[in-house]
């Protein structure tokens, strides 16, 4: 050690200090994600508590009537407003159901074709093309739903004698379903290709046709992965905003008819918070309560889905 210059040791002390600095910066950066979550949860809960001081939480969760328009003067008739979230939840559910009825089967079948039937070249060309659908901004889908699909459905309904609202849940749900196809298909694709080839080969070797092998062996084996993907898709569809803001209705209605106009949680958040508003009225605070509801539901879906997908991946690793 004696031929080692002293200076190097001095420098390394400085280096150690520098490295500690760098390390603490790294740690701070990695906590930003936590801070974001804390910020989201804290702000939603804080504003929601203020809302629940005015409107009881049971009224909000179980009330069947939603009309947040507050009168400007205190003494006006109907100044209290009604904040029952059930119609909004039902509307959200209705549109999501339509969307998943489109995206689920189409996405899964597309994934099956691409992973089991398609030639290598076809798959290499078609898969990225299909994924363009996922990259299109949602506002474009909203425009498409409101300007193109909704009038089509209305005219189609009129032609067969049905009364279709111009802001039907069907139009919004259908377009939302189209948007979700690549999402479902890419997750299902991952799940299908993760199934060991030996399982499929076993089925084929016993004389089953390809579709029998897919239906009776591959899909059951990949089911946790597919289910996780569908849950993630559900969470996306529930939180989707622009399509419903542009194509779904504004008035809350208790209905399960997809030809009716319904409103959703996200639509109401946007309507309540855009434009001028004072920040202390229950009307604007209710948007945060809706946000908390949305966050909680999607969080539960996401956690379950991610757990499912992870457990499934480990199963075949």
């Amino acid at each position, binding site marked *: 050690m004696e031929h080692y210059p002293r200076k190097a040791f001095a420098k390394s002390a400085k280096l150690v200090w520098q*490295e500690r600095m*760098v*390390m603490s910066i*790294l740690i701070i*950066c990695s906590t*930003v*994600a936590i801070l*974001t*979550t804390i*910020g*989201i949860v804290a*702000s939603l809960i*804080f*504003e929601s508590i203020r809302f629940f001081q005015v409107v009881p939480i049971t009224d909000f969760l179980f009330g069947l009537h939603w009309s947040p328009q507050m009168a400007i003067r205190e003494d006006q008739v109907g100044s209290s407003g009604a904040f029952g979230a059930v119609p909004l939840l039902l509307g959200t559910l209705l549109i999501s159901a339509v969307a998943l009825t489109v995206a689920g089967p*189409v996405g899964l079948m*597309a994934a099956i*074709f691409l992973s089991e*039937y398609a030639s290598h070249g076809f798959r290499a060309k*078609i898969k990225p*093309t*299909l994924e363009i*659908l996922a*990259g*299109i*901004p*949602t*506002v*474009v889908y*909203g*425009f498409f739903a*409101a*300007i193109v699909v909704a009038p089509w459905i209305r005219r189609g309904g009129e032609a067969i004698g049905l009364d279709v609202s111009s802001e039907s849940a069907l139009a919004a749900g259908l377009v939302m379903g189209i948007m979700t*196809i690549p999402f479902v*298909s890419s997750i299902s694709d991952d799940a299908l290709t993760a199934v060991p080839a030996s399982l499929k080969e076993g089925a084929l070797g016993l004389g089953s*046709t*390809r*579709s*029998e092998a*897919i*239906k009776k062996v591959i899909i059951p084996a990949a089911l946790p992965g597919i289910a996780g993907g569908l849950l993630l898709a559900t*969470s*996306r569809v*529930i*939180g989707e*905003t*622009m399509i419903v803001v*542009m194509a779904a209705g504004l008035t809350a209605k208790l209905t399960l008819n997809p030809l009716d106009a319904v409103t959703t949680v*996200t639509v109401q*958040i*946007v309507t309540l*918070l*855009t434009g001028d508003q004072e920040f202390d009225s229950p009307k604007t605070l209710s948007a*945060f309560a809706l*946000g908390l509801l*949305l*966050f909680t539901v*999607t*969080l539960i879906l*996401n956690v379950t889905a*991610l757990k499912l997908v992870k457990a499934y991946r480990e199963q075949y690793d």
Partner: protein
Amino acid sequence: MTELAFKGPEPDQLRRRHRAEKRFRLIALLSVWLGLAFLSVLFVIVVTSGADAVRQTKILLNISLDSSEFEGGKGSGLAQIRKANFEGLVKRSIRNDFPRAKSRKQKRELAKLVSSGAAYEVREFVEANPEKIGESIDIWVTASDDVDMLLKGKLKRNMPADIRQISDQQLIWLDQLQAEDRLETQFNWTLFTKGDSREPEQAGIAGAMIGSLYSVLVCLLISFPLGVLASIYLESFAPKNGWTSFLEVNINNLAAVPSIVFGLLGLAVFLNFFQLPRSAPLVGGMVLALMTLPTIIIAGRAAIQSVPPSIKEAALAVGASPIQAVFHHVLPLAMPGILTGTIIGTARALGETAPLLMIGMVAFVVDLPVTFTDPATALPVQVYLWSDMPERAFAERTSAAILVLLAFVGALNLTAVILRNKFETRY
């Protein structure tokens, strides 16, 4: 035990199974084509309806710039020019062309042929060419949106007059202008150089484009360094303990939180708590950054993970400190992957609308934003705003704005794909 004896497959049953196989395959193939069909319908509709907005009808007017018009008022030069009554000049010019329009109603209809923005166009011309004062000039001014729609065939001549928006008398005048070659469609510069307007023929997406650029810039400046450093920590230095796995779960969940919730966060924290300005691209960019961060971290970790440990170990073996090994050797190799993830995240941020609505970037903004705190909209928000406008001429402009948005998003995604293909190394 005779029942167990092997019987060959009944030909009937086999045929049925093969038919089922074919049917299944067909349904699967149809699903793929269904997705592609939706994609092409979407593009065809947006392109066909947006293409018209690239051209705008103009009318050639002969305006005499009497010097008496520019003498009143105080000041000289530009200030004096601005005081002149350009609206009057435009109206007088078109009345001179059609002297037979006498009644009040007819004069009003006549003035409605040109856009209310025509006066500004004449003013801009005079400001640029003050020497023309006193002369008589020929100038192409913007026609009103109804005239534009008529010439593009969106309003039909045979429509009932009350739906047509254009009166029979106006049709006659327009025919005369057309016969004199004073009516033509030109490239619509307004659309790409101006801010928003209530009048479709004067509305442009330049303001929204600047707003988008600023927001995305802020978003990148915040989320890229944070994301890279966080992924380095998580992938290379973080101890395997409860806290780290909590961080990981947290980041994965954050990536799936609905974008509108980030908007609520921005509203409650940035606007109400920190009192940052409403409608500003700065705040928009900050919200988008928080939204993009998980995407970048996930992509960054995958990229760092794909660098083989031998590279880091070699650096450590020749005396580099762990931080030197990561920053000098692992990070450069992981960079293409990180950049790809960042670009894809940026493309998503560029197309995001809902969180921007929450922090007030839906204002009606005519002036082009200059600083990061000026009120602004963004391109997708402009699409949303215009899609709600009743005027027919806004429909084609909405599609044009969508085309521009798709072009930007597409270019970003294409860059990401090229980057991935070019630099992707398999160790």
